[in-house]
């Protein structure tokens, strides 16, 4: 009880909980699940954008995209490392991912169908991710908060690159402008879904808020994202595909239409356009690489044994 009170004091004072500190089991479990899902999202998130590396239409964009996808692998690595400070095991988390027992962000279950999607993912998807993640830089668990600071910094950079690609394309040919508009049409609603169910439906929020693992409700973050994005869309010259979207001077916010929650749950439950494909891709990479990891481990063990003898 002493320990629990100390933990609560630290969290309430917005101080950091560190790996060696006592923490409640529920806190540990909730964090492991959240960090793992976040790590999985980075790793699965490599696929929709990685899909365009080989076809990038200029060498500069190819380099930017390759570097971005590489950063995502790096983010996955930090985050798995943060989860490991809580006693999780990376191999075990990977198994949970590829057997569907742990989730990742549903946005990556949508296909990327043109090079404009690369820009729109940078602008909207990374934008929404940043809205979700900036508060996590102040989250109560130290290693997670520090990982998020680095992740957010790099994601802001990616977001600017995505938006800049779209600005360039909008200054190009008519075909390019239409390509951007189509990408926006496909990704706008799924981006709004990234904030999760509406507050009236959302579970776990209260406890997570108290633990400072979560700092704003889904609907608050979603509203913030919409308000931030509408002027960017105008500057870009694209139309956000929502006839109900308009400024509400009374609320001081934009009103927007109702999300298609049927689609939301369909994708969450595994029947999105790419759920099966994404998990299968990850599973195959993991299984195809098993012999390489085994070889590296066997070699390291032999070497260690030899050094021990010497």
């Amino acid at each position, binding site marked *: 009880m002493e320990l629990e009170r100390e933990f609560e004091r630290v969290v309430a004072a917005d101080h950091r909980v560190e790996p060696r500190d006592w923490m409640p089991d529920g806190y540990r479990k909730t964090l492991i699940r959240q960090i793992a899902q976040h790590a999985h999202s980075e*790793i699965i998130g*490599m*696929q929709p954008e*990685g899909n365009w*590396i*080989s*076809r*990038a*239409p*200029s*060498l*500069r*964009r*190819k*380099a930017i995209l*390759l*570097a971005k*996808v*590489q950063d995502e*692998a*790096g983010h*996955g*690595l930090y985050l*798995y490392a943060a989860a490991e400070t809580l006693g999780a095991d990376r191999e075990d988390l990977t198994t949970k991912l590829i057997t569907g027992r742990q989730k990742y962000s549903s946005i990556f279950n949508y296909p990327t169908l043109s*090079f404009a999607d690369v820009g729109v993912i940078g602008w909207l998807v990374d934008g929404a991710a940043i809205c979700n993640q900036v508060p996590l830089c102040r989250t109560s668990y130290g290693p997670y908060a520090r990982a998020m600071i680095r992740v957010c910094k790099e994601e802001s950079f990616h977001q600017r690159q995505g938006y800049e*690609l779209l600005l*360039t*394309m909008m*200054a*190009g*040919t008519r*075909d*390019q402008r239409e390509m951007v508009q189509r990408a926006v049409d496909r990704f706008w609603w799924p981006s709004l879904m990234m904030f999760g169910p509406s507050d009236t439906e959302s579970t776990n929020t209260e406890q997570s808020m108290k633990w400072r693992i979560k700092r704003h409700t889904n609907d608050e973050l979603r509203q913030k994202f919409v308000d931030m994005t509408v002027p960017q869309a105008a500057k870009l010259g694209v139309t956000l595909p929502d006839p109900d979207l308009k400024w509400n001077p009374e609320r001081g916010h934009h009103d927007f239409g109702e999300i298609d929650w049927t689609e939301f749950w369909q994708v969450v439950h595994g029947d999105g356009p790419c759920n099966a494909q994404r998990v299968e*891709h*990850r599973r*195959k*990479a993991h299984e*195809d*690489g*098993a*012999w*390489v*990891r*085994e*070889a*590296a*481990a*066997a*070699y*390291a063990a*032999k070497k260690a044994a030899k050094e021990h003898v010497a």
Partner: protein
Amino acid sequence: TDDLAAYALMLGDDALILSQRLAEWTSRAPELEEDVALANIALDLLGQARLLLTRAAEADGVACDEDTLAFERDEHEFRNTRLVEVDCGPGPGGDFAATIARLLVFATHRLALLQRLVGSRDPVLSAVAAKGVKEVAYHRDHAAQWTLRLAGGTEYSRERMIAGLDLVWPYVEELFTAHPVEARLADAGVAVDPAELRAEVDEVLDTVFTAADLQRPTAAARAGGPGRDGIHTEAMGYLLAEMQHIHRSMPGALW
């Protein structure tokens, strides 16, 4: 001049096409750390390719740039050796061991080449080489480390490593055969005569093979090519179809 443009294309295309092949591993590597490492190597090579293609575009004098050269040339205009275009995986054409085998050979050869090219009379080639030496030294080391691990890991990984070397070995000879352009520019102090590199490459590879307890492959050189003349393998057309499709589909687009 034409020769300088052709030579810059040869070195640039080698880097571009191998970068394209290595980038295919992205999200498919055996572990996340290797995803990062292979992407890094691909990025380094892409950077070298961009500088060299830009040099070729300048030397050529015709209105073109790195992108027109990368995306609007037809297969027979690509000057890379066949070694870099072969499908070494991921996928049915090869596996991680074949990828490492090719990288080992390529980086060993290219490091020896760039070290000498630092002394080129062409200031751009010299500068590209000076930057590249540091990068490719890392690539070579990375491939050598994995060669040791795979050859000395499990019985299966050793088999794969041997098979990977056998897959790429028939294309190695082409690296040492001087194209007339290389010969002329080497005489002029601009390029490196590839025949000069053989002793050093052999020595480095033999050192790695000895450390890994591997036999040097004995497969004969493969007829055909040379890639430097634009005569490639059947894999090349598919690689270019994928690489060039979007660029070619949207003429006049800004990217």
